[in-house]
């Protein structure tokens, strides 16, 4: 994390807007005011129907109409074209306001969009990007398969070229929000004669195509967060391949890099608000008088604070035009471990009430997915050991 810097300041505060005077402070003030007036009053539904997507779409649309969607996205795709620092300020204000996250739009905004911007054709960009920030088209991520989890390159979902079409057959699993999505960033095998990293293609799949069958999977928190998706000779235009046919692995790596970049910073920062809320609850309920609980809350809060400091570092790197590389895996690993700690602390603060079907109880259960999804904690540690510390494979 060394070798670049942001100019010094002496301003009486240390936030991202500290040394930039009026412009950034005004930006934060505007964001704060807008959020106070506009965040949804109702909680996100925990149901299985279209109302889940409708809720997320309404919130996304409201941010878009208010001029707050896609702070860092280019203007031509509906974004604001602002700096990583302003993106960070917006995320901080989302946490402060306890605003809902992007929900079913997380994949579209966090990595399908950024991947298309990097690798998509002009036609693909013009067609798909403008309908993301507006809350019109949620995407899902079709990477994992029953036989290809941590070993992603072992994927077997097949696509055969037939004239100017691809014919896709196979299965994906753990596809989050597939039941609510219009498009899927789908990895398929278009050639199985070379090494496993060759012959993969990154395809835009219209989830409303004939032959696509989505089956939700209820997770241990009782919510159908993930799905199985079956493709039975689904016909997709060859024009939907992003990048070149058989060269999708590099495109997929961009997708995963975006996933660890600034796009999901809001979810990491949200942990700060969660710990603050737990602390407030413990204060009010008298639990803070229990030294064992107080000690754990203090630890969790100290550790959550560093999430923000690491985010500032990441933003400083982004502003210097540097990608974090394997350091991104350290940030994710730190966050996931802390989230697991906080989730368990939450049910312990709740005491006997946690035996009911309480929001914190469900939070604890839901976060068991953290060390499994997006590369298990073991895979993340392999990446850190091998790429950051130079340990042998």
């Amino acid at each position, binding site marked *: 994390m060394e070798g670049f810097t*942001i100019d010094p300041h002496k301003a009486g505060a240390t936030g991202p807007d500290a040394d930039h005077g009026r412009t950034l402070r005004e930006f934060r003030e505007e964001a704060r005011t807008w959020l106070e007036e506009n965040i949804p009053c109702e909680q996100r539904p925990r149901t299985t129907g279209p109302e889940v997507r409708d809720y997320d779409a309404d919130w996304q649309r409201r941010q878009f109409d208010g001029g707050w969607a896609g702070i860092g996205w280019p203007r031509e795709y509906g974004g604001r074209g602002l700096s990583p620092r302003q993106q960070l300020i917006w995320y901080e204000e989302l946490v402060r306001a306890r605003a809902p996250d992007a929900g079913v739009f997380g994949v579209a905004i966090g990595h399908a969009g950024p991947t298309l911007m990097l690798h998509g054709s002009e036609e693909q960009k013009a067609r798909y990007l403008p309908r993301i920030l507006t809350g019109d088209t949620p995407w899902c991520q079709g990477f994992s398969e029953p036989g290809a989890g941590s070993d992603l390159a072992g994927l077997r979902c097949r696509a055969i070229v037939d004239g100017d079409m691809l014919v896709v057959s196979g299965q994906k699993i753990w596809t989050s929000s597939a039941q609510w999505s219009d498009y899927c960033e789908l990895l398929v095998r278009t050639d199985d004669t070379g090494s496993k990293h060759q012959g993969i293609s990154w395809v835009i799949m219209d989830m409303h195509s004939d032959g696509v069958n989505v089956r939700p999977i209820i997770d241990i928190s009782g919510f159908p967060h993930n799905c199985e998706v079956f493709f039975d000779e689904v016909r997709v235009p060859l024009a939907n391949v992003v990048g070149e046919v058989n060269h999708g692995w590099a495109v997929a790596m961009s997708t995963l890099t975006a996933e660890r970049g600034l796009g999901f910073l809001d979810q990491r920062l949200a942990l700060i608000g969660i710990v603050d809320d737990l602390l407030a609850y413990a204060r009010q309920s008298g639990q803070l008088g229990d030294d064992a609980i107080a000690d754990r809350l203090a630890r969790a809060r100290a550790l959550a604070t560093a999430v923000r400091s690491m985010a500032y570092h990441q933003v400083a790197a982004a502003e210097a035009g540097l990608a974090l590389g394997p350091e991104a895996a350290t940030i994710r690993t730190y966050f996931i471990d802390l989230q697991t700690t906080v989730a368990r602390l939450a049910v312990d603060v709740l005491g006997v009430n946690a035996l009911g079907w309480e929001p914190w109880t469900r939070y604890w259960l839901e976060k068991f997915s953290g060390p499994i999804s997006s590369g298990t904690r073991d895979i993340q540690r392999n990446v850190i050991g091998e790429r950051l510390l130079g340990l042998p494979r």
Partner: protein
Amino acid sequence: MTITPSPEQLSIFRAADEVLAREITAGPSFTADRRALEESTDRLWSTCAGLGWLGLAIPEDLGGLGLGAVEEAMLFRALGRHVAPGPFRSSVLGAHVAALAGDEQLTAAIVTGRRRVGMLTGSFAVDARRNDLVLALVGESTFLREAGAIEHQAGVDPLVLWGTGAPGEVVAHVRKSVVIARTYLIVAAELLGVIEAVRDMSAAYARTRVQFGKPIGAFQAVKHRCADMAVAAHATLSQVLYAGAAIDAGDTQACFHASAAYVLAAESAAKSAADNVQNHGGMGFTWEHRAHLYLKRAFFLERVLGSQRVVYQDVLAPARHEFG
């Protein structure tokens, strides 16, 4: 937002690292023999005082270099990395206390290294000799006192001069609140140095030690312990830099951020230093290998200011995080 160190700030770390590598790590090995420890500490002390290390963040008109808390943290990061002996943390803090109390002569005496400042921890004297001063954090105050007579004895950290004493008169005092953030920051930065050192030590060993026909770093159990150290180092460095920037900016949450840095650093260093012993197998259990020095320094720094529970009070103090 100064969260990544500037080239100048980094150069302080590198320069200090270089000096300490030469003077300590590559130098004659330090032993538990008190006389030998005092002699090698004396040599190190005059070298480092001559380089201006004791007054890095003391205003120039008081004989310091007028730099900030981030620079100071970078110095202590290097001192921690080499498990430096000598009363560095207490003397640097002592210089701040003297400066804040408005005692120019005393400040100059400490900054030039003429008067060393040890520390009182409970009824114990740390890194103090007769005729030195001692720093004491008591209740809401921070005192500088004459050290008085000290009875030296063995302590857990072989590179710390340990003893009991009956401190003499108070020569300066300030409210604890004006130095506590800096105190947390300095100790956190030393612990950061410990984490980074054991991370590098473990990774180097795991790359070269061969068992079952391959380097042990190829085994996930070892690899993941090393990875955890890298995660801890990254998080701690980020928080130390943030807390330093907050202190330099006069941020109202500076104490909170520094206390968070200390809690994170203490916990991470304790785990990393213990894992480092494990990674080195039997060698890590020997007095000869440096692994135990880091284990003991981490343990020492975790409680040198008293119970972590006291630090927790500062972490829990703000009702909520402030943004902007």
